[in-house]
């Protein structure tokens, strides 16, 4: 449910930050009283060492542009405190000089939302700040005012954080104000939070033709549209306040014709109130321009499908609280202008746009004080009809016209004969018989619901609406839909979203959708968290039904181990433990790995890649922290987490389970977790933050891009070269591959196992060679090469390979790829693509580890420097020593001194 105190707190915070205009309006219904527990004096932003401080002297626009043009990755550009009047648009391009090298992860910031003020009233340019072609950009702590077109616009950019910003057109509200305050378009992964937008002649916050969007804790006041999600996918809009606009929050899908159309949008936990301002947008007859928004409207859904509106407080609206409508209300000349503009062959419907909303779920909203003075130039007939027939205007109104047209089949080419308007195809099949296309509104309190059209309408009576009203009898839209997933934003290794990085409750959903398509739990194999009734363990068999059909709340539900509290031994149902010859370093944690294959099925052998495991396979890896790195597996080792990789019908799913403090259970923890750990290592006590990855982070490493460019989840370790070693089974020591083959778990194993190119054993403390007694300095060059290649493979090559997440770096570190002839692919004399490198120039300088970036980044524990980027808080001294030795011995190359 909506949490009033939380919203009040965030509004209070904005006011404390001194947002002008905030809270000064007499007719705002919200009582602003900060709870005593909230901090009263928020501190201003801090600037990192090396931040580029823009001078306030001279031409401010030139000063800022200079910094934008010269920006390098990870720069923080700080605009001075004060009010400035830039004379032109501040344009930032991620690759201004076009050399293909991007300035990534740049931060543009001021001293505060009310301390750094850019007033564009005298600018020659249309936009205030305009960012294009960037990767991971943050803009925060500043104010942009009076821009001719848009306050802050971003285009073709992946990774955007807009935080603690204000965009304001002050004074009288009129059509000459700029269109959009915050305006990302054709972008991906957009987080907008804690901003204030006022006075836009179109939308205060407008996210267009984008995907992976989180808009939260913002205040949109006195715009035509407060917040608009247009032609965008995977958006969560929550904890915002929309007040004093013409319309509060809009979810629109417009016929644009460039292939971007919206779906999967959630609007929840927002306070939408008093949006009764006369519409001050320019009146064009572009049928769905924002000028059509009837004043006094809370939330509008136009044409978009898969929208969920829930747990909002929506109050004090002259016209209506929530409406969902097809495009046919905006363009009522269906057989004329609509057909001509959108439905001709090769037109916008062919491009993928659809006019009819489907699967809309409006539930749990608190709606009050709606419809006292309905108005709006688009809908006078509808208002008159309701007032004439029923004497009221409904708080929730559904046009039903699109559904009626779809169900009539009038404009749908179903392949059969007899279309009344032959050749004109709206591509709107009848609504699904199972109800999954329906528009549902339930549990919204004591409100009136209206539906203009219902049932099938023949061509002749489309002009005669039904004008139905439900006064609480439950006659209209009385149904519900499956919850939409939580939508997340991925920005570098950070993931933002409801309940992911904040403590917002009631995020609903269950499944999570973020970048790289459906992530982590499901690949759409199951809906939400699946059938939770499967999550009951019994007997001594693995709960395969649950593994395949549900994301269970606790690990024990899957019944993987004889003792549910000990995931380090005694697997059920023929699960087989395994070890890798060389392993990923994870802060000296011990790892207990098991493979469970479905009964009677085997994995298919592959010489270079991970074995091909059958559906139903689950790989289980438990991480435990020893007291001393020299004594893993002994008493006192603490269980931390257990990760599952489950091969479901549509692909692999990763589920992280975190063990409770008392080790009585391991709970599903999709957002990951961080906790303090300590251990003794070589006589030294190390204390650090151990990170359990969130579900998106699992995929960061566990993904391979296939030939069609689709990134798919994949296991990493179970490859022949890491498994070809002995394991001490209860039944006696045996070669793992041979053991798997002998027990029917593996087919296609070559007869000569000894001939398999195997990564040599390398232990956490650097043990290698016969009896693990090898000494690096005494090893042969070939031995060192082989050890280093094995180590780089298991620690780096899941990303650093052509199909991996870091393919853009050009580093290719698979074990099987020989160094000789592939020197540059290993990093030798190679300038890094996306890393500043400090004072170092090459990933590897043969003979000189100290001059090699690879060595430096492995030794580092600083975010931004360290490699791997996630999965460790410590550096692995034995691994670093190995790479040091390897680089020393590499044959001299052009960059060697």
């Amino acid at each position, binding site marked *: 449910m909506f949490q009033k105190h939380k919203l009040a707190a965030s509004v209070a915070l904005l006011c404390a930050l001194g947002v002008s205009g905030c809270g000064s309006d007499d007719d705002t219904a919200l009582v602003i009283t900060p709870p005593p527990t909230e901090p009263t004096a928020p501190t201003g932003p801090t600037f990192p060492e090396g931040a*580029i401080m823009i001078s306030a002297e001279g031409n401010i626009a030139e000063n800022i542009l200079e910094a934008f043009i010269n920006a390098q990755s990870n720069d923080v550009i700080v605009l001075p405190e004060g009010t400035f009047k830039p004379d032109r648009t501040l344009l*930032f391009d991620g690759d201004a000089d076009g050399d293909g090298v991007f300035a990534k992860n740049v931060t543009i910031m001021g001293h505060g939302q009310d301390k750094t003020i850019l007033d564009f009233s005298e600018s*020659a340019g*249309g936009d205030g700040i305009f960012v294009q072609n960037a990767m991971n950009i943050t803009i925060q702590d500043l104010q942009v005012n009076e821009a001719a077109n848009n306050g802050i616009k971003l285009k073709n950019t992946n990774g955007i954080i807009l935080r603690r910003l204000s965009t304001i057109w002050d004074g009288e509200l009129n059509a000459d104000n700029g269109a959009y305050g915050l305006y990302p378009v054709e972008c991906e992964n957009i987080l907008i939070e804690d901003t204030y937008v006022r006075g836009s002649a179109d939308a205060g916050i407008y996210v267009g033709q984008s995907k992976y969007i989180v808009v939260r804790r913002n205040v949109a006041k006195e715009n035509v549209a407060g917040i608009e999600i247009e032609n965008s996918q995977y958006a969560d809009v929550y904890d915002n306040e929309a007040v004093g606009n013409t319309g509060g929050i809009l979810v629109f899908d417009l016929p644009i014709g460039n292939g971007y159309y919206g779906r999967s949008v959630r609007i929840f936990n927002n306070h939408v109130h008093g949006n009764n301002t006369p519409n001050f947008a320019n*009146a064009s*007859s572009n049928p769905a321009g924002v000028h059509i928004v009837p004043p006094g409207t809370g939330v509008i859904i136009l044409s978009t499908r898969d929208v969920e509106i829930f747990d909002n407080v929506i109050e004090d609206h002259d016209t209506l609280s929530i409406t969902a409508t097809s495009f046919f209300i905006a363009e009522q000349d269906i057989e004329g202008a609509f057909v*001509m503009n959108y439905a001709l062959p090769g037109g916008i419907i062919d491009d993928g746009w659809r006019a009819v909303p489907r699967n809309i779920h409006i539930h749990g909203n608190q709606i009050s004080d709606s419809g006292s003075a309905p108005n709006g130039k688009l809908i006078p007939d509808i208002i008159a009809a309701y007032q004439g027939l029923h004497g009221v205007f409904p708080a929730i109104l559904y046009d039903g016209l699109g559904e009626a047209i779809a169900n009539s089949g009038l404009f749908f080419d179903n392949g059969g004969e007899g279309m009344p308007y032959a050749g004109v195809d709206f591509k709107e099949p009848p609504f699904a018989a199972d109800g999954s296309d329906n528009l549902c509104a339930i549990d919204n309190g004591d409100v009136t619901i209206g539906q203009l059209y219902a049932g099938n309408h023949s061509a002749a009576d489309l002009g005669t609406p039904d004008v139905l009203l439900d006064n609480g009898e439950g006659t209209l839209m009385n149904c519900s839909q499956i919850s939409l997933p939580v939508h997340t934003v991925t920005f570098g290794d950070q993931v933002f979203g409801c309940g992911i990085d904040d403590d917002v409750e009631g995020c609903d959903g269950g499944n999570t959708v973020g970048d790289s398509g459906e992530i982590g739990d499901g690949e759409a194999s199951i809906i939400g968290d699946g059938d939770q009734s499967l999550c009951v363990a019994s007997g001594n068999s693995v709960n395969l039904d649950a593994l395949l059909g549900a994301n269970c709340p606790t690990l024990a539900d899957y019944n993987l181990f004889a003792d549910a509290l000990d995931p380090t031994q005694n697997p059920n149902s023929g699960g087989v433990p395994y070890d890798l010859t060389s392993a990923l370093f994870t802060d000296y944690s011990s790892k207990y790995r098991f493979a469970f294959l479905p009964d009677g099925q085997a994995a298919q052998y592959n010489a270079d890649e991970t074995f091909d495991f059958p559906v139903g396979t689950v790989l289980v890896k438990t991480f435990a922290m020893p007291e001393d790195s020299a004594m893993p597996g002994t008493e006192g080792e603490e269980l931390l987490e257990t990760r599952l990789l489950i091969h479901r019908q549509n692909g692999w799913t990763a589920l992280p389970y975190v063990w409770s403090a008392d080790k009585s259970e391991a709970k599903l923890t999709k957002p990951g977790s961080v906790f303090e750990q300590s251990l003794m290592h070589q006589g030294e006590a190390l204390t650090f933050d151990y990170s359990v990855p969130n579900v998106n982070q699992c995929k960061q490493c566990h993904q391979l891009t296939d030939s069609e460019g689709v990134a798919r989840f994949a296991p990493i370790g179970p490859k022949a070269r890491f498994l070809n070693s002995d394991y001490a089974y209860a039944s006696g020591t045996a070669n793992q591959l041979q053991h798997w083959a002998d027990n029917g778990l593996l087919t296609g194993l070559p007869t000569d196992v000894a001939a398999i190119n195997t990564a040599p054993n390398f232990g956490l403390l650097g043990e290698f060679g016969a009896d693990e007694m090898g000494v690096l300095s005494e090893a042969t060059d070939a031995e060192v090469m082989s050890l280093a290649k094995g180590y780089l493979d298991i620690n780096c090559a899941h990303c650093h390979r052509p199909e991996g997440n870091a393919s853009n770096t050009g580093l290719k570190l698979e074990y099987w790829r020989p160094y000789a002839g592939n020197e540059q692919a290993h990093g030798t004399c190679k300038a890094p693509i996306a890393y500043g490198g400090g004072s170092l120039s090459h990933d590897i300088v043969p003979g000189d580890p100290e*001059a090699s970036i690879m060595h430096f980044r492995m030794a580092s524990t600083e975010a931004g420097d360290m490699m791997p980027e996630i999965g460790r808080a410590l550096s692995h001294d034995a691994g670093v020593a190995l790479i040091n030795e390897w680089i020393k011995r590499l044959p001299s190359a052009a960059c060697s001194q």
Partner: protein
Amino acid sequence: MRTSLKLKSLLLVLILSGCGGSNEQANVPILPPSPPPEPPPASACEATTSEVNWTALQTENCERLSQYGLFVDPAQPTRDPNTNGRLYLLTTALFSDYASKYRFLFLPPGSQVNYEEQEAFSFPVGSVLVKTFALPQDSALSGAHNERLIETRLLIHRENGWVALPYLWEGEEARLALAGARVDHQMTHRDQTLTFTYEVPSQPQCKLCHQLNEAGVTRISPIGLKAHLLNRSDATGQAQLESWLGDGWLDRLPEAIPTAAALEDEAASLTARAKGYLDINCAHCHRAEGFASISGLRLGFFQDHTQFSYGICKQPPGYDGGAAGLDYDIVPGHSGASILPYRMSHLEAKDRMPPIGRALVHEKAVDLINRWIDAMDPNLGGCTP
């Protein structure tokens, strides 16, 4: 390539932190150990030669235009290119506040341009396009005596792609101006005196127009060097592309070459003139791969101009119709109801098209577009004012 810039911005930080009251000097950022410093290599920009400085063009953004050695007289970028440079002319041109433009192509010795049917020609790495803008005192007069040198723009094809560098003229010298500049100018145009601020684009602004997006990656690309815009006589009266072919500058030339008509060409049809003008003035953005792809408007020379995508009865998704409340880009037969000439004839940031690159209205062009629209069959497209 970016080295000199990097040094510069580092320097800026150092200077700023020196005077910015930072008293945390002891807290030096921990940098990885660095190899012993080498003596800085002599900048290729410092080389003195009377030839084109190919090395500098390839590797550095020189502070002064003259360091590239492009012209016999470095102070005269309007004539006499050094060896391997040649002047070229377009059939119809982008309007830039009545500025005269002097365009040169420099090809690395022994290399060749590849002919393309519809797109910009393919240029070998090393190619340089040089365009100098000079503003006349009177729009009716051109030539060095009547003009003031404003800026010279370079498009250099380097190893990793095209790089745009704007140079601003100050006296006898043009200096790199990555942030652009605003230059006040006064000009007699017919019977009026125009006072305006001419805008030299910043480097990222160059990219606004000069970018093509392929599979999500934007790359800088030349605009004017297309067959239909180059197919005319050159300064000596020879067929320009024939000369290129004859001199070995071009790999091939087909029999039939399309030609975009000049704006002023009274002999050509209104449609031909309008299409040529819209191509060179609009289509770099208004194409599927261009900056304005989201508009859905496609104004390229080879587009069918009777179609919705060319603006016929097309509503613009991102424009509110202006104060006039107009609905369609082009309403056939009704120029007054058409957004296209409306935006061409406005100067406010909200309304003007192109959004950058002009501070004046190109009256002749507006007039042409109006006449072209008015001459269209009003039944085309089916929309009404």
